[in-house]
């Protein structure tokens, strides 16, 4: 089975959970022997793991015909792409895009991030996708997140192959209800055109059904999983400070993640106990507001903002923590609690997170219930039996949640969708 996937992020260059999920999912799917995946990215840098997936960069897909010789192409894109593919793609340019800004290879430049001109980049992505869809041979199209829905629709129309879209988040989660109409239109359009919609949680599925008015029969839930920890992460030595317990919040400090509830709960705990420290790692538009709140509550001496962390740093902090907390107001899935549990860190999550649907060995609270949150934090610090139980059982539980299983679930959906489309 050949799958054409459209994505926006791929490790090691990731900005959020989307990249991690895309990576895990493709890797899980690739465990099936007959699975061939072509993954399209706006701007691959060449250091991605290509052992199980073929990566095509949108920034090296020609949309305007240029007469360039092999050696030149090889010197430009050879580090991450076979020059022959460039020529094959060049043979499938389908319209005159010479009015657009293209480079010397006839390709559109991409930032690969979330720039100001995001809509333009989404549009360009879909133009290049048209070329790929004409050249590549595949059975099904799989689009990750709203940025790539237009590309998926385009590819579907060009090839006549069925389209599956993967909803990693909706604008209702990102905006706490203040939905951006343009984003909504793109999302809705993608869902309307899709032959099947996979959602990362039942929570998201309900939003898709109720807010985007989709037929429940074509919407299914495919929970995310987590990749096993690599050797060097496992080898990180835990640096716990004796008699000091660290409670960690990790993530963007934005409205969606509910940081203010964490601060309020921290203040309740700190007014009753000593030897506990709170860490809010990450960056975001509510950071200054949070620093002010911490100062107002008079707990700044025990509440820390180390800023944005990446890679190893994240795991170093996690491993030093007594508990991990994710009080998200609305979280489509949320992979980070699974990562914390992999490190053996007891976890507190909000009931409004998608991952709460598949996790049992952790505290689940309502994001607004700061009393319960404070109580859970206190309990993990004060009762070693509880800490150890959550540490051991949590790890056992999360080790059972693998991308390979997710891969089989997706495969069943693929088979079903392809069968249905053949019937029609």
């Amino acid at each position, binding site marked *: 089975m050949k799958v054409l996937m459209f994505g926006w992020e791929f490790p090691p260059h990731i900005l959020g959970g989307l990249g991690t999920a895309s990576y895990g999912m493709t890797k899980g799917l690739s465990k099936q022997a007959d699975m061939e995946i072509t993954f399209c990215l706006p701007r691959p840098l060449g250091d991605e793991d290509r052992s199980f997936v073929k990566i095509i960069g949108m920034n090296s897909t020609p949309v305007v015909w240029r007469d360039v010789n092999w050696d030149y192409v090889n010197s430009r894109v050879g580090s991450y792409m076979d020059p022959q593919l460039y020529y094959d793609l060049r043979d499938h340019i389908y319209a005159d895009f010479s009015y657009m800004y293209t480079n010397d290879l006839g390709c559109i430049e991409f930032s690969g991030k979330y720039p100001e001109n995001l809509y333009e980049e989404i549009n360009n992505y879909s133009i290049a996708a048209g070329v790929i869809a004409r050249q590549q041979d595949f059975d099904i199209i799989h689009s990750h997140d709203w940025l790539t829905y237009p590309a998926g629709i385009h590819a579907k129309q060009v090839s006549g192959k069925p389209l599956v879209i993967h909803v990693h988040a909706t604008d209702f989660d990102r905006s706490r209800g203040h939905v951006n109409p343009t984003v909504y239109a793109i999302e809705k359009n993608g869902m309307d055109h899709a032959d099947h919609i996979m959602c990362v949680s039942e929570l998201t599925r309900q939003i898709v059904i109720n807010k985007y008015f989709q037929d429940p029969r074509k919407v299914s839930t495919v929970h995310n999983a987590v990749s096993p920890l690599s050797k060097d992460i496992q080898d990180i030595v835990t640096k716990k400070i004796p008699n000091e317990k660290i409670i960690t919040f990790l993530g963007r400090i934005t409205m969606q993640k509910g940081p203010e509830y964490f601060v309020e709960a921290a203040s309740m705990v700190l007014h*009753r106990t000593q030897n506990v420290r709170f860490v809010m790692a990450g960056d975001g538009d509510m950071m200054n507001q949070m620093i002010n709140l911490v100062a107002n509550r008079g707990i700044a001496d025990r509440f820390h903002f180390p800023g944005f962390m990446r890679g190893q740093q994240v795991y170093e902090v996690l491993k030093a923590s007594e508990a991990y907390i994710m009080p998200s107001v609305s979280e489509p899935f949320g992979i980070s609690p699974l990562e914390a549990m992999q490190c053996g860190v007891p976890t507190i999550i909000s009931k409004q997170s998608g991952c709460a649907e598949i996790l049992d*060995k952790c*505290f689940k609270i309502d994001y607004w219930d700061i009393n319960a949150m*404070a109580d859970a934090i*206190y*309990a993990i610090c004060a*009762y070693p*039996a*509880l800490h150890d139980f959550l540490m051991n059982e949590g790890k056992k539980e999360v080790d059972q949640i693998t991308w390979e299983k997710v891969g089989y679930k997706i495969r069943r959906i693929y088979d079903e969708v392809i069968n249905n489309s053949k019937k029609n």
Partner: protein
Amino acid sequence: MRTICLYFEIHQNVHLKRYRFFDIGTDHYYYDDYANETAITEITEHSYIPALNTLIEMVKNSDGAFKVALSISGVALEQLEIHAPAVIDLLRQLNDTGCCEFLAEPYSHGLSSLVNEQCFREEVMRQADKMKSIFGKTPKVFRNSSLIYSNEIGGIVASMGFKGMLTEGAKHILGWKSPHYLYHCIEAPKLKLLLRDFKLSDDISLRFSNSEWNEYPLFADKYISWIDEMPQEEQIINIFMELSSLGIAQPLSSNILEFVKALPNCAKEKGITFSTPTEIITKLNSISALDVNYPLSWVDEERDTSAWLGNSLQREAFKKLYSVAERVYLCQDRRIKQDWDYLQASNNFRFMTTKKTGLRLNRGIYDSSFDAFTNYMNILGDFIKRVDALYPVDVDNEELNSLLTTIKNQGEEIDELHKEIKKMYLTEKATLEKVESNRSIEILKKKMGNITENIKTKEPRGSNSNKVTKEGAKTKD
């Protein structure tokens, strides 16, 4: 002659309220009064009252052929006294018919039998006394919380003077043996064991109203015919369940009470009688000893204690609770003693289970096992603080015990001495008064003597005047 032993348990735990860690040390009241009242009212209305009325009616209609056994945990009794005294009246009525036996059980419906013998004995005796004060009879047969039993527990129970005990006919203990005989405890052969037939019991308490069950609908004649078809030698059929099965687990709308009501007649037709546990253990002989090394119970598929002590959270809470058992035993504080009963109830530990049984567990106010653990440990934190505040922590229990005994003895001695002093004071007073009066007589005598002498010496002056003084002296006296 084949006989059915029907037994019902009455127990309702006291619901704990939401108790946050910042309440520790400031709030010493742990109970959710509203939840307790609503729970007990609902259960009495839909189960206890209709079920007990039915049982009384059955006894009356059968001319005493129908017999039943009941046990009530002390904790439940306290709640019934407060919220539903009508149930106690009905229990008294049932008791007055003479066809009902009340059994003993641990007062708290707790697990003390597994960990603390002293505490276990104390609460069993307390419960037995309470039964005697209400129903006028001292229970002779014992049933442990959730029918927990092991050789060791059997030994303790026998030493308390009980003649019989109820427990589960667990497959892993019985093997090829049948629960339809009388057995005895391997440690104390005098203690007879009645084993629950879980199939027949669960047919009523679990499956009766389940329309997907292949025996649905179940009628009394069919049920009795199952019993009748058993091999002739199998004599006792023990059907044990919670009383709330009639009305709550199996709703009244399923006609469960009509089913129960029809049992005596159907049984009579087949020549099957009803007996109380005491009748069985006095009439029949034990067939063999039962060897139970690890505690068994009537809960879950495993029939062991894993529903309460299966995970490390439960064991931790359990250990913490009983770490203060001796202190509580030694103290005289009534509120602490009461909290101790309520905190021991096995339900508190059940809420913390992480077992997946397939059956939905009602965790009450708790979201999860962790939530239940946290809330319980917070309360326990406060409780232990209060217990520790009674006596200095650095004195160990043995020393404390001897100190308390000394204090008690000295107190008694002081009382004795006080009494003695009082007695002595009284005798002293009496003697003093005697002495006093003797002395005054003496003085008088002396005076009299003087006077007479005076008179004798002054005689020559004239007898007339002498007479007057003599009279004057007399009047002076």
